[in-house]
């Protein structure tokens, strides 16, 4: 039920915000009840009295203190050190009402549920990072498999439930819960470092990375493709129709179908058909002459073409 005038007067908005900040320790529900129409009231004061608000009403901190007494609110548990407070107030005066700061401050509470999820995950992940040296992504397992997932899920559920209850109660942040949250934030840092170091180590050991470039063909150690095998007998006579197999009895038929200079080599469709692992393989080698025309060369020189004695 805020009047439209409240948002148009930056002086009133700033004063009201500083009063709210001074009462930040008051439970949210109670504070809202108390300050519901503070802006409207300050607008009245501003409209009926000349001069700046803090001249008429004193500092926002004093105003808040008087309000606290009149409304019967508990006194603040501890007063911040005066020296530190001076710096803090100066920073707040300089930047506290900057549009960007206000926008971020209004937006941050929306992220609280995300933090509840993260802190639940981080608590388990940090335990895992410390004891196992690695973090399961996305769910830590604690080395227990699915049981670990259940533990992680339970931790997140408990964290969210606690967060929801605390928000519903509107209770101010106690020292204990503050320290607990800082501790869990540190856990998150530990867990994230654990995840990051896993990523890095993967990059350092490329042996784990495989490059799938299809079936490999025969090559020499220097990379020259092997396009054919020409067997000779112990007495130096060329052999034909030699069948080659590997140690497991699998036929060796993975010749390269490209020569080193890019010439296409294809098995010749011969009659009668030869097994794919019969060597030397009858082939058609497609090259190019000096005019760029395709020249097919048959290898080895066809036995049928040679005159049979």
């Amino acid at each position, binding site marked *: 039920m805020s009047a439209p*005038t409240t948002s148009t007067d930056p002086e009133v908005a700033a004063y009201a915000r500083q009063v709210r900040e001074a009462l930040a320790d008051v439970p949210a529900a109670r504070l809202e*009840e108390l300050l519901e129409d503070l802006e409207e009231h300050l607008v009245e004061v501003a*409209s009926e009295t000349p001069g700046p608000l803090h001249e008429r009403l004193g500092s926002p901190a004093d105003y*808040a203190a*008087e309000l*606290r007494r009149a*409304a019967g609110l508990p006194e603040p548990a501890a007063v911040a050190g005066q020296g530190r407070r001076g710096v803090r107030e100066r920073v707040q005066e300089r930047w506290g009402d900057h549009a960007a700061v206000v926008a971020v401050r209004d937006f941050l509470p929306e992220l609280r549920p995300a933090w509840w999820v993260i802190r639940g995950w981080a608590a388990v992940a940090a335990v895992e990072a410390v004891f196992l040296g690695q973090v399961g992504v996305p769910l830590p397992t604690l080395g227990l498999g699915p049981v670990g997932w259940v533990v992680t899920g339970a931790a997140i559920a408990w964290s969210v439930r606690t967060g929801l209850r605390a928000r519903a109660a509107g209770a101010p942040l106690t020292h204990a819960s503050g320290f607990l949250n800082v501790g869990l934030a540190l856990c998150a840092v530990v867990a994230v470092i654990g995840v990051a170091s896993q990523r890095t180590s993967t990059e350092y050991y490329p042996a784990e990375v495989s490059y799938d470039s299809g079936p490999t063909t025969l090559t020499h150690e220097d990379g020259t493709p092997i396009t054919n095998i020409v067997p000779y007998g112990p007495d130096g006579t060329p052999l034909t129709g030699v069948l080659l197999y590997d140690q497991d009895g699998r036929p060796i038929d993975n010749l390269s179908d490209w020569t080193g200079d890019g010439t296409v080599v294809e098995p010749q469709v011969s009659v009668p058909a030869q097994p794919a692992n019969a060597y030397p393989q009858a082939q058609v080698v497609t090259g190019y002459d000096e005019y760029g025309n395709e020249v097919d060369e048959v290898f080895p020189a066809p036995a049928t073409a040679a005159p049979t004695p």
Partner: protein
Amino acid sequence: MDTTQLLKGVLDLAVLAVLDGEDGYGYDVVRRLRAAGLEDVGDASVYGTLRRLYAAGHLTSYVVPSVEGPHRKYYGLNASGRAELTTSTKTWTGFADTMAALLAGEQVAA
């Protein structure tokens, strides 16, 4: 003697009394209290008292739109507020009488 200390104890009663005559908005209540002689009354005290009495269920409130100025939130007494005013008035009157008698007695004794 510091009147602001005394005021703390009777501000509820003072605000109820002011609103019993006529409904008023926050700053209007401040002004009427000051006009009645409670010049040291603080704006925040009155605002806080109004909100507390409202939260306690002693006041009704309604917004009156204004053409030139801001919208004003008026407060008025409801049945609970009037009952509270009656009770508090009795308490205060008894207390004030006691104090008056005490002070008169001291003056006689002196």
